[in-house]
């Protein structure tokens, strides 16, 4: 109510102030529009995040001592970073993220270039390519688990029978399990990267490409000196999206290997979910989650810097 009363301009006031008042009112109106979203975000994202940061400094297990909390400072973080499983989880997560995103980008870029030219065949291909993206990662994991099973899987059985893999199969080998999971991720998400890059390619200004062509640039020169620099913002988008997603990998690992064999495929999220939702070790699980958030934030920042530098360099040329 007070907003309405103060905001009604008195007719005697000068017009300059009147318009300012109008702006104020507009601002308030816009704020009011945003308010539900702000409240929502605060309740479901910011508040839990702050809580999670708080919990991470406590020895807080819901199943012990009636859920009593003891302040332990940075102990949880130290333990994640020094504990064997914690270190493995961190390394596995980085290997998975870098491996998966690298190949998804290379293959996705290649696919996007192939599909750039608009034609019926390409449109049909595109539609088929999107099938993996539409399947839930959990289901993808179950499908590959079944395919790779050595007893009855269409792929796993023959690979083992022909001696290409060990008789126990790809997912049961300490050296092959993580690469297999990376492959599954590449299978599922390369089309998405291709689609994002394709959208970027289609939005490139045609006159510049024509000019490069008229100037006699070779295909490679056109790609490296014209297309790639112009495509950088889209590349950035694709890489950051996939990187954040890959770093949080959980479902496909959970249903295929459960983090095994041993802890060869335990990712930070698999480890965190186990600690938090299986053992209800909330303090420790919060520390794992915060480390994960921090890593993602740092990688996103690094990407932004790299891309900006590349962008500046490209503009200078």
């Amino acid at each position, binding site marked *: 109510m007070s907003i309405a009363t103060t905001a009604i301009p008195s007719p005697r006031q000068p017009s300059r102030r009147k318009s300012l008042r109008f702006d104020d009112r507009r601002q308030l109106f816009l704020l009011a529009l945003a308010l539900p979203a702000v409240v929502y975000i605060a309740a479901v994202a910011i508040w839990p995040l702050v809580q999670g940061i708080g919990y991470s400094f406590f020895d807080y297990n*819901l*199943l*012990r001592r*009636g*859920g009593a909390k003891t302040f332990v400072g940075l102990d949880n973080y130290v333990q994640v970073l020094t*504990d*064997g*499983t914690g270190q493995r989880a961190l390394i596995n997560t980085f290997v998975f993220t870098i491996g998966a995103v690298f190949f998804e980008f290379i293959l996705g870029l290649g696919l996007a270039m192939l599909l750039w030219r608009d034609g019926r065949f390409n449109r049909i291909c595109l539609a088929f390519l999107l099938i993996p993206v539409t399947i839930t990662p959990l289901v993808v994991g179950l499908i590959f688990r079944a395919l790779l*099973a*050595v*007893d009855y899987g269409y792929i796993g059985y023959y690979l*083992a029978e022909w001696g290409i893999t*060990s*008789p*126990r*199969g790809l*997912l*049961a*080998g*300490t050296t092959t399990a993580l690469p297999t999971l990376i492959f599954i991720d590449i299978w599922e998400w390369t089309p998405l990267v291709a689609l994002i890059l394709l959208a970027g390619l289609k939005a490139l200004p045609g006159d510049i490409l024509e000019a490069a062509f008229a100037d006699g640039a070779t295909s490679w020169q056109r790609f490296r000196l014209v297309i790639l620099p112009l495509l950088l913002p889209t590349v950035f988008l694709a890489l950051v999206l996939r990187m954040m997603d890959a770093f949080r990998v959980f479902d496909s690992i959970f249903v295929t*290997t*459960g*983090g*095994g*064999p*041993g*802890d*060869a495929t335990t990712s930070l999220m698999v480890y965190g979910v*186990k600690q938090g*939702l*299986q*053992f*209800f070790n909330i303090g420790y699980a919060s520390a794992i989650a915060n480390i994960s958030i921090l890593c993602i934030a740092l990688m996103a920042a690094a990407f932004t810097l790299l891309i900006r530098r590349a962008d500046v360099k490209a503009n200078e040329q």
Partner: protein
Amino acid sequence: MIKTSALKLGVAAFALASAVATAGAADKPLAGTTLTIASQNDQFASVIAKLAPEFEEKTGATVKVDILDYGSLLTKTQADFVGHTKSYDLITMDIVWAGQYAENGYTVDLNDLMKRDAAELQIDDIYPATLKYIGQYNGKQVAFPFAGYAAVLAYRKDLLDAAGLKVPETAEDFVATALKLTDPSKKIYGFVANGQKGPAVAQDWLQYNAQLGGSVLDASGKPALNSDANIASLKVYKELFDKAAPPGAVDYDWGGREESFRQGLAAMMETWSVGAPGYYDPTMSKVVDTVGITYTPVAKGMEPKYGLGGWGMAINADIDKEKQEAAWTFIKWLTSPEVQKEMNMNGAGSYIRKSTLADPDLNKKYPFLPIIAKSFDNADGDYRPRIPQYPEIQDLLGTAVNAVLVGGVDPKTALDDAQAQAVKLF
């Protein structure tokens, strides 16, 4: 005017309703009550769901059975206890959760109710080991046993006969026989056990470990995961996986293991008695005529003791007194001799009563019941320590043993690592 008549009508309706309710209460004391059970997806689950209408007919209470896999059951019920959300009135409790339940007071202590209704329960007919291990902890009875399982050895008579071998009576014989019976070219393996990371491999190894003289706790109850006996038994377990188990076994859990035996892939398998009815079922088993069931072997010179596992029914301590009483009525019904027999005639494979295991009809259907009876008489339900830290210990072992089986990690290194982490839990 209208108001008054509406009021009169209301009063009349209320009177009528209470009259009906009283009439109903006489023969159906629990009419209007709904009991929700969180049940492990074992053989008994669908049987309980099938028999529940009989309980409703008798008492008026509706029973809803929520059938969950092991992981979901644990997570959902823990969340229910911790959040006091009262989603479940009754919970099937794995034998190894007793310590955690007792420490946190999640469920109703049944001691007083058992004393009050001792005659009705016919406690003397129930195996003391099932009462002791499935639910008793630090003087509390946190659950009432309704499905006791004995660890048994399932074997193939035809394969042993063909090789001229006897059914192994010691753990050493078992290993030697398993190695001899294995012939990968014919797809016959001497042995199969759970190798899958997590509870599956941990629980199976703990079983063999106990038979070979190992133990995960020392005499004072502190963790001793890397004791010499444990390291030695893990070496044996690895040897069996390397030389005598189907290659896929490193990823088997209970389901995969049972299936491989029913399909005739494995010659010998230690298992829970609850799986045994499946071997005699021609719709799912290829070994109906050739399977035998016997006692689990222990190392030479060791006192024979047989692994005991199974499930108790627990009452959520958060629900109100009246509902707790209704839940107790359900437990009494479920564990009564009549219902126990009916459950097992339906293939539940869940035994707690001497009279059920001695029942002629059941013995005709399942020839292996005397083995279970004798195993229950000499049962050990503590080889998987039922302490509050059990889930974490099981997880550490589940990772360590799996790493040894498939990762080429040395048994001592793996158990040393697990021990270092286990010590932090105490």
